[in-house]
């Protein structure tokens, strides 16, 4: 069974790169462009891992994490936040909201895969 | 099947001279002899039963499996307006490549390979021909008889479904 990952990011480029890397490694990848759409998708689809950016319109990543941890079918699903190196406080904020871990962007594909396999191994 | 072109005598003229000879495969349909450029011919095989394609022209006999490729087969006699061929195992299908496609021509028998000087290919005369002159590319004299050179491109350029009219 393929592991399913949801990537949430308003940047198409980022989604493309994440998606491409993960698909190449045998994951099934779903995409959403902001937290709100992600919630909608997650209400009807189970995924094994969520990777989300922080800065997005409609609903940002930290709020998304909080919502997911509060209720619903993904309370125990690993969540990774995408953060830039200057966002140390954002990292902490994401962690405090309930994220499992983080990936610094821009990322090398191997790094992405290693973090993914760290929190959501086969 | 293709044999190498005869190189011409002198070295410097080799290119020009080689262009002067062409090779053809001649074959018989009914009482007439026809020929096609050997460069177009891929294979010659015996007739085997085709799978009919629905609603095609009468001369379109269907398709054959040629080692994995689906090849359409056309009845030349019928294409010339001379009636359908009652195909038997002794009939011959010439597989040709035209315009990027592979197709097969059902004929009565293959006759010969002709090596002809380009200069000896005469234009089609204005008299009654067994077939529509649009299909003809020239006439070759072989011994006492005339072999009609076919233009394969023109023969199949208007192939379409059964509602379009056929030029007889």
């Amino acid at each position, binding site marked *: 069974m393929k592991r399913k990952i949801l990537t949430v990011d*308003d*940047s*198409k*480029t*980022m989604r*493309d*790169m994440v*998606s*491409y*890397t993960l698909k*190449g*490694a*045998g994951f099934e990848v779903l*995409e959403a462009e902001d937290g709100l759409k992600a919630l909608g998708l997650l209400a009807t689809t189970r995924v094994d891992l969520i990777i989300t950016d922080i*800065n997005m319109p409609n609903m940002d990543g930290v709020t998304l994490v909080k919502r997911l*941890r509060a209720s619903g079918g993904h309370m*125990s699903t*690993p*969540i990774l936040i995408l953060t*830039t190196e*200057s966002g140390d406080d954002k990292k902490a904020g994401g*962690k405090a909201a*309930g994220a*499992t*871990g983080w990936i610094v*962007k*821009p990322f*090398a*594909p*191997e790094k992405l*895969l*290693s973090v993914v*396999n*760290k*929190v959501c*191994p*086969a | 099947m293709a044999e190498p072109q005869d190189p011409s005598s002198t070295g410097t003229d080799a290119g020009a001279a080689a262009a002067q000879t062409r090779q053809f495969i001649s074959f018989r349909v009914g009482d007439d002899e026809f020929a096609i450029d050997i460069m177009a011919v891929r294979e010659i095989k015996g007739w085997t*039963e*085709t*799978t*009919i*394609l*629905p*609603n095609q022209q009468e001369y379109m006999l269907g*398709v*054959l*499996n040629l080692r*994995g*490729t*689906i*090849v359409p087969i056309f009845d030349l006699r019928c294409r010339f307006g001379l009636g*359908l061929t*009652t*195909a*038997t*195992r002794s009939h011959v299908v010439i597989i040709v490549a035209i315009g990027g496609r592979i*197709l097969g021509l059902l004929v009565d028998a293959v006759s010969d390979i002709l090596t002809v000087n380009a200069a000896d290919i005469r234009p089609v005369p204005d008299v009654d021909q067994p077939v529509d002159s649009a299909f003809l590319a020239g006439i070759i004299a072989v011994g006492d008889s005339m072999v009609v050179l076919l233009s394969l491109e023109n023969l199949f350029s208007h*192939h*379409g*479904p059964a509602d379009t009219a056929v030029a007889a």
Partner: protein
Amino acid sequence: MPTPTFGSDELAQFRKTFFEECTELLADLEERLGALAAFSGDIESLNAIFRAVHSVKAGAGAFGYSVLVGFAHRFEALLDRLRDGKADLDERTLAALVAAADVFSALIDLARQDETPADDFGADVAEELAALLDGDGPARPAARVASEAPEASAERIYRIVFRPNAELFRHANEPLYLIRELKTLGTLTVDCDLSRLPPFEALNVDDAYLSWTMTLQAECRPAAVAEVFEFVDDECELTIEEIAATPAVQAEAVAVTPAAPAPAARATPTPAPATAARTSGATAGKSAAMSSIRVDLARVDRLVNMVGELVIAQAMLAQQFVESHDREDSAGLQGFEHLAGLTRELQECVMAIRMQPLKSVFSRMPRLVRDVSHKTGKEVRLEMAGEQTEVDKTVIEELADPLTHMIRNAVDHGIEDTAARLAAGKPAEGVIRLSAQHAGSNILIHVEDDGAGLNRDRLLDKAIEKGIVPPGAKLSGEEIDELIFAPGFSTAAAVTDVSGRGVGMDVVRRNIMALGGRVQVVSTLGRGTRFTLVIPLTLAVLDGMVVAVGWEKYILPLTSIVESFRPDRGQIRSVPGGGEVASIRGEFVRLVHLARLFGVHEAVDDPSQGLVVLIELANGSKLGIVVDELIGQQQVVIKSLQDNHDPVPGISGATILGNGRVALIVDIEELTRLNDRSDRAARRADAPPRPLLVNA
């Protein structure tokens, strides 16, 4: 800054996407900035501008455009301050933002052109940004975790005490994974402390009761051990200390205090005794990362073809075996079944290589809609769904043009202008919905708009005017809709420069049919129009049902077959205007005689003497196909007829059966259309007899 190691083709594609995105983001940024300058902006404008710069920065970092990244960093920092309310948007700041946007845009253009800007490009603006940031100075260099140089193999021993708290679990971190990860570093012994585990009835599922004491023998540096716990060090008590190899010499272990969480600590290491280098099988943190490789497409095609041939060969072999062996030879048959299963799996794997998500085609559409709606002065919104739906790569390339045509048409001719929409009680903004989904062995792509719909009266008039249809012709509603696919047809009152003659639908239809697919249209006047593309997945394989019709055999797609039955005469009715229906469980199903449609003689004509195969079409409607009998199910390798022949209506492809003969695959979606034509037309005089094969 290291660039990610994608292949250069993918990188080129991502770069392309990135710059397309930059254009969109810049456009948005300019607009928002304009709003701010006009004092009509708000916090959301600042957020949007921030996100735009932030996104560009992330992408630029991925591609190594360092000057752009550096500038963006400052730009972003100021925007961050502003949106957090920590700085004021005064005139000086606004001017700086505007100037920064200009530099930003110029840097992006240079990057797009692959030109490196001078190091001092935009330096004055950068300085002003810095000044406004209160002398925070140049952007902090990216903190990167330097990859550790491999240590000379010196065995170390670590003692790790790990006690997660409840929060760790709530964040979906899993101690098991962490322990497993430690195992990959070296040899691990684990000791679990169960002392705090209460009796079962007192167990609180959300609480953490376990802790572990572990000993790790590894060659890695302490940082590598700490990295395993990088995400959880706030949510557990953790001690990592290096101890000597021999039990005799041990560093003083730091006591674990349950009260305060202890960050990863390392006691002063005693010099590790230089034990003979033992291969401990340690792989310093090598992750199970899988990589991808670039493959020449021609090789993939060859692979696909070869596997297709393999499937055929295996089918032929199986057939010969069955024909020449005792039916009771179950061992042999089992062997063949096993082989068939393996071949099938191989085929699926190979097919999957070429599949790609539709997103690469879909992603151009928002821009297109924006452009066309601007040009036409209409308000249009594009919604997309199903971009992850995967299709063979060759199909994707062929879809771009048809979809572009259709979306353009939808905006230009489908959606009405704002005034007309408001007058009709519709919202001013029109919606176009582009969606894709799998349906059996096809993919369905819908292009739907909530516009004016097709005006059938006008269509019919135009068609008569253009001589496409004779005057006084009676056409059904659907047939009139189909007229838009006629070559040279256009009902555009004025030729717009956007879509030229306003249609290319005949070209669209031809393109889609060349893929073996179909275009269908459904429209309601005043409400909207929906185009559906039905495209086979270009899988070279189909689960087929072989049916006999006269002397011929045809293949029907198995996934579309609901059931088959032999109707009583009483279940069959004629329909006024020609044609037959069969009643089954209360519904009436249109009957299609393949023999009639395909001109097959000596076939069963009376359905009650043959069989009706009930199929379900892509749009959910049902059809009953009259055949002589079912031969059997077979997995069939699809061979294209169209390599060497023009498309044949009603036939979607061909295959080679186990006996080496060609069998045609029926295009069930087309049957309705062909059936209508055939039913309405006067019965043709019997076709001339086909030549029979005479054995010489």
